[in-house]
């Protein structure tokens, strides 16, 4: 039960962070990617700031025997860089540039129930569905 509330709080904090930093504004995201035009580098600080805090926390967390709330740590397995990773990241980059939304901010913006982001999330789910059809787990 405690796990659910901690998850809720973390999700809330993450959502507020994405909103305050401007990651949920498609025009700002596209401005960040527009290096050959009117480049808006401010979102660099969002990523650098998040990595700074997260990376520091990670060093301390790894020294612990186990997590505070859950029974074990859930870490992704170590895998090599492969074609799937590169193709996936490239496709993601194109979609991100066209729409100005990546998954987290899109889900945060879904709370606004505005037409364009709702369509984006529906088609994002469709993309996930197609992937899972082509590459069953």
């Amino acid at each position, binding site marked *: 039960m405690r796990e659910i509330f901690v998850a809720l709080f973390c999700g809330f904090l*993450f959502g507020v962070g994405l909103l305050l930093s401007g*990651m949920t504004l498609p025009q700002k995201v*596209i401005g960040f*990617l*527009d*290096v*050959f*035009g009117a480049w808006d580098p401010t979102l660099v600080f969002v*990523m650098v700031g*998040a*990595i700074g805090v*997260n*990376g520091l*926390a*990670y060093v301390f967390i790894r020294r612990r025997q186990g997590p505070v709330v859950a029974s074990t740590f859930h*870490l*992704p397995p*170590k*895998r*090599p*860089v492969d074609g*799937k*990773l*590169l*193709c*996936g*990241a*490239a*496709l*993601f*980059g*194109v*979609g*991100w*540039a*066209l*729409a100005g*939304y*990546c*998954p*987290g901010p*899109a889900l945060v913006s879904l709370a606004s129930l505005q037409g364009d982001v709702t369509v*984006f999330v529906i*088609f*994002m*789910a*469709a*993309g*996930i*569905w*197609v*992937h*899972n059809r082509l*590459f069953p787990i």
Partner: protein
Amino acid sequence: LVGFGTRLGGGCTSGHGVCGISRFSLRSLVATVTFIGVGMLAVFILSLFVHGR
């Protein structure tokens, strides 16, 4: 594209860019450089069409 790419690439801006790089994962660093690079290229190509140069 975003849904399919995130699944195929095993992560997004938050998963690879923030959580992965913070864990010193090479895969995440490569993925992040790739999607930001391709994203910048896509915006550039799109701007050529929009401004009609």
